[in-house]
């Protein structure tokens, strides 16, 4: 496994004028991986990317790319290329000249430059736009030029700094899929910075969730989503119901009463359950006679198309539960009305214990 590590950071620190941007980051990114750095603005994810690109130097720690220490190596000698958030295309150069720029800087012969530029433009589906200037392109097209310009140099690692954030939702969703396909086709290592948790979940092989210059949790998308390690991760990725809990013979004592867990609590903790994991049943009709049932009243219903979001109140506790609209086709599934009393089932396997 160690041979597969392409990027290794150990104890990396960086601060700007007394403000700590990275507070001792250890990280290993594997070859061929789509790796996301996810976090709110100011969490240090962009700083991390800039350290990898070589635009900034770490105050402490070590960065290795492809087995080489990057200390003192300027950006133009690093085996990485960057897709900038605002693309940073050269406005006075055509699409072709933008994509050819890096190849020309390497001093490749003209014939090879042309061949590679054509390859890169075909890769991102921009053939025919060679003579256009960036100002004559749409946002999505500019994004592709930026991608082609970086990929044509065949970097060991492609760094992407929120490349989709400037685009509208529909285009963003399309480009997500294209970017994933591109990455698989080329087998390149992508390090992708985003604050969009959905983007990270959809695209990544692994995700590092960052906060205040530290990595809070690192894992597969479903691990990070289903088994958040702490309150921050649970809160930042999607929405969560959080319940304070104390040890109890059955499992945990909570404001909703005793709840059974997979393993009883040993100390005070927080229980996390995702809205879509809570099952809703009408009172007295087909209710499974089980534990972890909570009676609640529907306070608000939000219809989003694909799902219904129920805002519930059980005593002092507010709960959020999602039901897929498709479930209505299944026997036993029902829609609920404002003010209606329902039974919420909180499956023990979906109650995640978090300490913080």
């Amino acid at each position, binding site marked *: 496994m160690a041979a597969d590590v392409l990027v290794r950071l150990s104890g990396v620190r960086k601060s700007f004028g007394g403000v700590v941007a990275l507070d001792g980051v250890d990280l290993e990114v594997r070859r061929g991986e789509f790796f996301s750095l996810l976090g709110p603005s100011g969490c240090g994810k962009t700083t991390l990317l800039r350290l990898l690109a070589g635009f900034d130097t770490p105050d402490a720690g070590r960065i290795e790319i492809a087995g080489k220490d990057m200390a003192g190596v300027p950006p*133009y000698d690093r085996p990485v290329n*960057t897709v900038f958030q605002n693309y*940073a295309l*050269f406005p006075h150069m055509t699409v072709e000249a933008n994509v050819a720029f890096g190849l020309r*800087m390497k001093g490749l012969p003209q014939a090879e430059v042309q061949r590679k530029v054509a390859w890169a433009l075909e890769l991102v589906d921009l053939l025919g736009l060679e003579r256009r200037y960036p100002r004559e392109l749409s946002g999505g097209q500019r994004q592709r030029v930026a991608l082609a310009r970086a990929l044509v*140099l065949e970097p060991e690692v492609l760094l992407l700094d929120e490349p989709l954030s400037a685009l509208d939702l529909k285009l963003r969703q399309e480009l997500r899929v294209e970017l994933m396909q591109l990455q698989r086709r080329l087998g390149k290592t992508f390090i992708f910075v985003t604050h969009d948790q959905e983007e990270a979940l959809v695209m990544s092989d692994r995700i590092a969730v960052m906060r205040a210059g530290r990595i809070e949790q690192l894992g597969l998308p479903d691990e990070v989503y289903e088994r958040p390690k702490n309150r921050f991760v649970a809160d930042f990725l999607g929405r969560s119901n959080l319940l304070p809990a104390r040890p109890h013979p059955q499992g945990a004592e909570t404001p909703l009463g005793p709840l059974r867990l997979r393993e009883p609590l040993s100390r005070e903790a927080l229980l996390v359950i995702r809205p879509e994991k809570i099952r809703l049943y009408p009172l007295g009709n087909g209710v499974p006679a089980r534990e972890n049932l909570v009676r609640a009243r529907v306070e608000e219903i939000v219809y989003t198309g694909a799902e219904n979001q129920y805002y519930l109140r059980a005593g002092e506790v507010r709960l959020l539960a999602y039901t897929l609209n498709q479930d209505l086709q299944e026997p036993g599934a029902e829609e609920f009305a404002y003010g209606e009393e329902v039974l919420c089932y909180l499956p023990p396997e979906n109650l995640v214990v978090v300490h913080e």
Partner: protein
Amino acid sequence: MNEAATPFQRFFRVLVTVGPGGLWLLLFVLLPTLLVLVASFLTRGPYGELSGPLGLHNYARVLEPLYLEAFAQSLLVGALSTLLSALLGYPLAFYIARHPKRDLLLFLLLLPFLTNFLIRVYAWLVLLQREGLLNAFLGAFGLGPYAFYPSFFAVLLTTVYTFLPFFVFPVYASVERLDWQLLEAAYDLGARPVRAFLHAVLPQTYPGLFAGSVLVFIPAMGTFVVADLLGAGRVVLIGNLIQQQFGVTRDWAFGAALGVFLMGFVLLSLYLYARIQGERGLEELV
């Protein structure tokens, strides 16, 4: 509201919006230029007045070697001042734009303009003359004295001094708007510092460079005060000759022809630039 406007209302609106500017242009640009143009075809009368006959004889004189030489000399002063202003002003604009106290530095750059132009030119005379400060300074090291004044060098130095701020300001405006991320992008794509600058930074400052060059070149070519005072007759520029025709010689017709010739040259240069650069070139200039 627009649909309901009568022809008179529309006329009135155009008059109110375009009128004042148009009137200004008419009175202070178009009319004087036309007067000069007409005068350039007339002849000097016995008492120095403008009279007939009409003809191209003034322009024929413009092409005499004496005047062409002065014109070449002016071209040289204009070109060298522009070049020197660029070499000094371009880095200075970057320095100011990236300095935390750039407002103060800009003010300092403007400060000389608070003093009368003639006094500043005389100040250079004092500095450069045989018993001046520069020679006194060099004398302390056992050097000189040198004849800095009167000379072509003195004219050039003072011209650059005078017009340097006109170069710095437009470049400064370009630098302020600079997208520095393009420099990072160039580094990222493998460009070493010098090439990164040439490809990612320099092109962004072309509009400022051009505007600055025009603002220095045109007045430097037409100046006569500096050449008069610091050249002391040794450096004769086209501006001096024009001034002479309107002053001592009282041949306004010939002076006008020289002026039209100079103006034509400048306009032609700008036109050629616009042709080379395309329409964007002229837009950026304005």
